[in-house]
């Protein structure tokens, strides 16, 4: 209690900083997240304020100056939007969608996974059957077909992502909870007829969190990639709220005529974000699950 260095969190932080790659990726993630949150201040232009853009500045190459002297660091798209600003705003939408989706998916997965582990029997059978069936299909394909049915929209993309991701968490939570439930203290608590919720939230929840955190980092990256792919395929976010994926899709037509920057830079932003998350995720997994690291 007294020695702060002994808290699990401090030990975790201590292990984390041992890897320079992971630290660099972590710092990268923080910068990306801050840029996305403060997009309004960081971006030199609000690309969705029609007063600030002019179509006369359309598809300018990176480094160009616009008619009003605006410096287009990464070029502009066909509407005359500054790509650098559009990218930061796009990043915001991509991150928002995936974090919200994963957050809800974690909650759904936690509730159903714990329920399956706790109740067992047909409840467990039913939930896990659904999980099995769902996980045997690629997430992208399921999301695509869901959106084909639901239609476009940020809310619908989030819903589709929750529906394809909850199963990963439910399976992980159930597995971890089952290990814990077999331990003596739970049997003891059960035989004392302690209320179920106290065991569930007091004992099981803390024990299932580490694997959930590991899966969640990976799934945030997956969510970002799936959202981008869906938007690229034209079933994701609407044109009024372009994520990175939609920006890339918009630049596709211009790519063939050599105006690469419209697709290129948002893609780089996407890639850097995903690599950072994956590197951090790999490292977190190694720390929380030393058995897997070699």
């Amino acid at each position, binding site marked *: 209690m007294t020695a702060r260095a002994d808290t699990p969190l401090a030990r975790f932080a201590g292990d984390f900083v041992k890897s320079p790659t992971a630290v660099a990726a972590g710092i990268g993630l923080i910068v990306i997240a801050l840029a996305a949150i403060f997009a309004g201040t960081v971006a030199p232009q609000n690309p969705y304020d029609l007063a600030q853009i002019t179509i006369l500045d359309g598809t300018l190459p990176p480094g160009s100056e616009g008619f009003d002297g605006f410096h287009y660091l990464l070029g502009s798209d066909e509407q005359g939007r500054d790509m650098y600003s559009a990218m930061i705003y796009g990043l915001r939408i991509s991150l928002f969608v995936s974090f919200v989706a994963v957050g809800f998916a974690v909650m759904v997965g936690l509730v159903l996974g714990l329920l399956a582990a706790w109740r067992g029997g047909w409840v467990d059978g039913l939930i896990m059957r659904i999980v099995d*069936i769902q996980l*045997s*299909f*690629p997430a*992208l*394909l399921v999301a*695509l*077909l*869901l959106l*084909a*049915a*639901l*239609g476009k929209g940020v809310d619908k993309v989030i819903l589709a992502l929750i529906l394809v991701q909850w199963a990963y968490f439910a399976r992980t939570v159930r597995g971890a909870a089952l290990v814990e439930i077999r331990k003596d203290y739970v049997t003891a608590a059960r035989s004392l007829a302690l209320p179920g919720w106290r065991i569930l939230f007091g004992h099981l929840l803390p024990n299932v969190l580490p694997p959930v955190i590991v899966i969640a980092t990976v799934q945030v*990256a997956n969510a970002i*990639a799936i959202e*981008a*792919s869906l938007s*690229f*395929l*034209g*079933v994701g976010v609407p044109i009024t709220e372009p994520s990175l*994926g939609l920006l*890339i*899709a918009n*630049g*596709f037509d211009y*790519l*063939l*005529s*050599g105006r*690469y920057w419209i*697709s*290129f830079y948002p*893609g780089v932003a*996407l*890639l850097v974000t*995903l*690599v950072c*998350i*994956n*590197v951090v995720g*790999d490292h977190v997994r190694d720390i929380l699950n030393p058995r897997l690291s*070699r």
Partner: protein
Amino acid sequence: MLAYLIRRIGQALLVMGVMATIVFFGLYTVGNPVDLLINPEDDLAAQEAAMARLGLDKPIHVQFGYFLAGLVQGDLGTSFVHNRPAIDLILSRLPATLELAFLAMALAVLIGVPLGMYAGLRPNAPASKAIMAASVVGFSTPNFWQGLMLIMLFAVFWGVLPAGGRGDTVDVLGIPLSFLTLDGLSHLILPALNLAIYKMSLVIRLARAGTAEVALQDYVKYARARGLSPVRVVGVHVLKNILIPVVTVLGLETGNVIAFAVVTETVFAWPGIGKLLIDSIGLLDRPVVVAYLMLTVFLFVMINLVVDIAYSVLDPRVRIRGGGK
């Protein structure tokens, strides 16, 4: 074994039924295909005639009844747009997708396994670190953007390969194939590579982890103690052992290849079932979407069976256990 097969097939049928129902009603609620397919300038009579022709004037449960009856007979309805049986349409596009998927899988294994094994055998070599870094990037790069970058480099900047389409094909047993003509092959390379890179990264990771583990086993040291050449030790003794997990995961990933083929085919305008799906979703061509779904579910079930069989061929221990039961 037979009981197992029957159970598997029963499960698959159930899954197909559930999926069909969800998608049928899901797509129905989105919008009316009539708006897309019928000229609003036509008079009311012509519109109603068109609706009657497509069966859209019936109540939804009647339409669903027709759909189920058709499903049992292998009839998945007629495409609203192409006016052809949906299943025919899908089957005519299937060879293009399968050709792409198989080539991608082959590339992933043929390039990924040697690279992963190298990284596993020499974990500290600079080349190994480069391979692993590249695999993280390959793992993280969204498929469609990677496709765009391939087009940008090979088609736009260097102009060495075409940006899209399928190129010349040759019919083999009535199936059009691209890889047998030079033009077709040049069209096939980029999409196949695009589809392969993600799998390749996965294979590299698996092969590296497997190799690092197998290399420590006594039987590898024993093989060396018998004076076998390094090529034989690595190429037979190590390789055959790491192929077991690689094949298992790849089998399960074959489904993903078909899913990601949707993206790749859209990027490269490759006329496979994935492109057909995206086009059909855009046009609300319901029967085609449902037919696509039924076909993929069917393919997945088959793939899982094939993986199980391949697994038992590779690992004699599994074969014995299975035979003993």
